C-alpha cells in the first residue's frame, strides 16, 4: 500500500531567493533583518528557508500512523533550529489550543462564583484577578472581573463572548487586593503582533500544547533565540526576538515548546510527545532519538561536528526501514550545497 503523502505546503517548491517572500503563515520573511549595533543584516535565503521549513513541518498531519523524518547536512547550525521552531509556532498559532466556541466558553465563565481567581491577558501582560462580586454590573452579555480594587487604582476587565479567550481559570491566588503591574509575557508585543498578522497574542500566549521540542545545547539555543531581529528596515522597523514567538517552557507558564539539553544524562522528557522534534546536532540525535518515536523529526547536522558520520549512518539505517518517500517539497528549496533527505517511517 502506498503511504499517504503529506499535503504540499503552501509556499514550498520555490527557490530560497524570491518566491517565498511571504510564507504560508502570511508573514513577510523578506522584511526580516538581523539587528545589531553595527548595522542590520537582511535574512539571507538560508534563514528564510528554515522559517518556511518550520511552517511546512507544522502542516504535516499529526498524530498519524507514520511520521516524516527530514535530515540536513549543514555547514553551520547557528539559528537553523530556532528559525524552524519559529516557523512551526507561527503556523500552529493559527490552530486554537482549546477549540471551544466562544459563546460556550463565555457561558461557562459567567457561571463562575464571585471571588474565583482568573488570569486575564491585557495589553500584553498577564494579571491574576477574580470574578467581581458586582451583581449590578452583570448583564446577559458581559460580567466584570476585578483586576485591582486598590482605591485610586481600581480596575475592571469586562469579559464578553468576544474577548473571553483572554480569560482563564487559575489555581493561583487572586492579586486583586493590590495594584497590579501585570506579568510581561511578551518582551516586544508589537513585534510579535506584526509577525503573527491576523493572530491574537492570546492565541500565542495562553494555553499549553507541545508543538515542538528542541534537542541541543540549551544555553546556545537560548542565546540564538534571544538574537535581536528587526521586521522592516531602518528606524521604522520593529525590533524583537524569536524568543517571544517560541513560547518555550519556563517554570509553570503556558508554553508551546521546550528545550531538552543534549548534554544532560537523564533529562526530563515531556509526558506527551511533541508534534515535531528538532535535533540540533549529532550528539542530541544519537542520544535521544528513541525518545521521540511518535513525533515528526528534523535532524540538523553540522558536517564539521565530530559525530556527524555516526549520525548520518543512523539516518541512513532508518531510511532503509522507511515506509515511503514523500514529495521532496520539504527540502527542494534548501540552500544550495546542502545534502538532505526526507522519508516517512512507521511510528
Amino acid at each position, binding site marked *: 500500500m502506498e503511504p499517504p503523502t503529506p499535503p504540499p505546503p503552501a509556499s514550498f517548491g520555490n527557490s530560497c531567493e524570491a518566491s517565498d517572500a511571504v510564507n504560508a503563515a502570511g508573514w513577510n520573511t523578506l522584511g526580516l533583518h538581523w539587528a*545589531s549595533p553595527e548595522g542590520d543584516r537582511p535574512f539571507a535565503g538560508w534563514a528564510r528557508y528554515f522559517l518556511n521549513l518550520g511552517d511546512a513541518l507544522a502542516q504535516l498531519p499529526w498524530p498519524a500512523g507514520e511520521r516524516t523524518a527530514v535530515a540536513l547536512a549543514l555547514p553551520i547550525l547557528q539559528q537553523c533550529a530556532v528559525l524552524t521552531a519559529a516557523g512551526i509556532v507561527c503556523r500552529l498559532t493559527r490552530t486554537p489550543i482549546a477549540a471551544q466556541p466562544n459563546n460556550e466558553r463565555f457561558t461557562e465563565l459567567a457561571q463562575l462564583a464571585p471571588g474565583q481567581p482568573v488570569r486575564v491577558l491585557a495589553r500584553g501582560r498577564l494579571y491574576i484577578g477574580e470574578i467581581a462580586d458586582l451583581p449590578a454590573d452583570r448583564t446577559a452579555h458581559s460580567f466584570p472581573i476585578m483586576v485591582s480594587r486598590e482605591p485610586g487604582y481600581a480596575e475592571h476587565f469586562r469579559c464578553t463572548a468576544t474577548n473571553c479567550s483572554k480569560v482563564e481559570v487559575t489555581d493561583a491566588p487572586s492579586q486583586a487586593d493590590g495594584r497590579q503591574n501585570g506579568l510581561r509575557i511578551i518582551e516586544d508585543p508589537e513585534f510579535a503582533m506584526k509577525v503573527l498578522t491576523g493572530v491574537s497574542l492570546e492565541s500565542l500566549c495562553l494555553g499549553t500544547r507541545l508543538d515542538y521540542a528542541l534537542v541541543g545545547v540549551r544555553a546556545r539555543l537560548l542565546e540564538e533565540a534571544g538574537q535581536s531581529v528587526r521586521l522592516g528596515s531602518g528606524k521604522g522597523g520593529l525590533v524583537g526576538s524569536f524568543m517571544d514567538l517560541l513560547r518555550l517552557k519556563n517554570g509553570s507558564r503556558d508554553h508551546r515548546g521546550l528545550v531538552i539539553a543534549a548534554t544532560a544524562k537523564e533529562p526530563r522528557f515531556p509526558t506527551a510527545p511533541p508534534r515535531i522534534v528538532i535535533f540540533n546536532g549529532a550528539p542530541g540525535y544519537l542520544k535521544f532519538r528513541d525518545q521521540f518515536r511518535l513525533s515528526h523529526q528534523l535532524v540538523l547536522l553540522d558536517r564539521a561536528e565530530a559525530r556527524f558520520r555516526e549520525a548520518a549512518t543512523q539516518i541512513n539505517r532508518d531510511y532503509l526501514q522507511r515506509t515511503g518517500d514523500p514529495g521532496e517539497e520539504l527540502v527542494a528549496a534548501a540552500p544550495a550545497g546542502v545534502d538532505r533527505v526526507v522519508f516517512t517511517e512507521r511510528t
Partner: protein
Amino acid sequence: MIETSDNLFAACAAPVLTMHALPDGGLRTLTKACRIVERMAADEGVADVVRPLLTKVKAMRFCLAASPVHGGDPDLCLSSVALRLASAEEQLAWSASPRLAAEFKKIRPLVVELSRRQSSPLQETFRQLWAERSKRAGRLAVVVPDFGIKTRTDAWLRQGPLKDVPVVLTPSALRQADYYDELFLFGPPRWYVSNSGEFVFATPRSRVLHVIGYRWSGLALTIEPVFRRAVSAVIPQGGAGGGIKVVVAPAESAEAEEPSAEDAVDTAEDFGFDVQSILQQRRQHGAAAGDPEDEEVDAKIVLLGGGEAVMLPWTDDAKTYSADFGDVGSYVEADEDDEDAGRVRRVFNQELEVGDFIILRTGSGGDLLPKVADGVMGIAAETHRLRQQEWKHALRDLERRHGGGAVCDRLRGNGANHASPANLRNWIRARTIRPDSDEDFAAIFRTTGLEHRAAEFVAGAIAINSAHLSAGFKIRKLLIAKVRAADLRKMHAAGKMEFRLEELSNDASMTAYRIERILPDVVHARLHELNDVFTLEDD
C-alpha cells in the same frame, strides 16, 4: 556570527577549488624505497624490527609532502635523521638478510639529498600564490592535515619567509564555524577526508580554496552524498558559479608523476600514533610524582593543540571542564550558575569530541581546589585538615600492618558495605574527603578505634566537602570571567590559551586546549597520571 553563517552557506553553495598539482620534489623515490623495505621486512618476518627504524623518516616525508617546509629546514633535523639511519643500517646488517639491508641502505642517500634542499615545489607555489593573494585584504590561512606538521609550519613561518605571517590551522581548528577569505591547503584532499575532515571540502570554511600538493600523491576529490537517496551537493567541475579547477605544473616525466594506487594507501600509517610509546612518555614525564601502587582506571589519551597530550579518565561519570568558544556573544546569565551548562561547563569525558576545548589545570601551584577550599574555610581549615589526616593515617597504619585484604575484612565486620582494596586505597588518599556511604565511614572509625570522636570527624568532612563545592564554584566563576575577556581568535589559531588565576594564587593557571584527536584505545592509567598535561616528544 550571522555574517559567518551567510558566508558559510554561500561558500557551501559555490566553492572555488583550485588544485595545484606539482612535480615531485624527490619524495616519491623515498616513499617507494621505504615501501620496498617494509614489504621485504614483512616477508622476512622482521617488520617489528624495521618499522621503528623508519618511523622518523616517514614522519619527515609526510611533513614535506603536506607543508611548505623544505628538506633543508634546520627544525626538520633531516641530517640527524640521516645519522640515525646510519646506525640503523649497522643494526640491520646483523639482524636482517643482506638483500633487505642493501635496500635499507638506499634510503639514507635520499634523505641526505632532501636535507640539502633549500626550497620545495610546494613552498615555491605557495610563495607565488601568497604574493598574489595577500595584496587583497582579508582573512587568509594555511591548512595542514595534522597538528605535528602545524608546529613545523609555524616554526618555518616564524623565520620570516613571507611579509605577513598567515595563521596555520589543522582540520580540527576548522571545525569551529569561522570564515576565511582564502584557504591554502597542503597535501592531497584524501589526507583530510580520511581523517574525518571531509567537511573541509564539503562545507568549506572559505569560498576560495587552494590545494597545493604533489601530482603523484593524487589530488582527486570525491565527496560521496551523505544520505542514501540524498538530494546531493557534489562540487561541479569548473562552471561559472564555482567548482574544481586543476592547475598542473609541467613535470620532467609525466609517467613518473602519475599517481598510483599504492600512493593512496599510505594515509593510515602517516596518521598512526603508537599508544604505548605515548604512555611511556607520560610515565617518564611524571615518574617522580604519584604512587606507583595507585589504583588503575580506564583512560584515553587525548592529543591537544600545541603538541601536548593528556590522559583523561574514560568512565561513565568522569567529567572535565569544557569551554564553548563557538561565538562571540554571551550566554544568558541564568545558565552561568549551572555547572553543566553555559560557556564553561562540565561535560562527560565520553561525550568529548575532536574540536572541543577542554580546560585543564596547568599552573605549578598544584591542585587548585583544596587550596581555594582552605581559603573558604579560613582559620578552621587547619583543624579540619588535621582531623582528616588523623583518621586517614590510622587507616593507612592498619593497612601497612595487616594488609589491605585483612583490613577490608575487619571493615566489613564493622558494617562497611563497600570495603575493597581499591576503595580502601581511595579512602586513604589525601584527595578523597570521605567515603560516600555513612556506613563505610562509621566502620572506619570502629576499625581504627576512633569511634568516640566520630562526630568531630564527620563534622570536619562536611565542612571540607562544602568548602570544596564553594571553591569549585569560585574557580568556575573566575574562569568564565577570564574566558569572556580572552581574545578568542588567537586561541583558535594556537589551539590553546592559558588563563592565569592570580586572584587565587600567584602560580595558579588553567589552560584551554583544543582536542586534536582522541586515540581510540582505552588504556589503564594510574590515578595520579590523569588530567596531567604532558608534551608529546617527536621520538
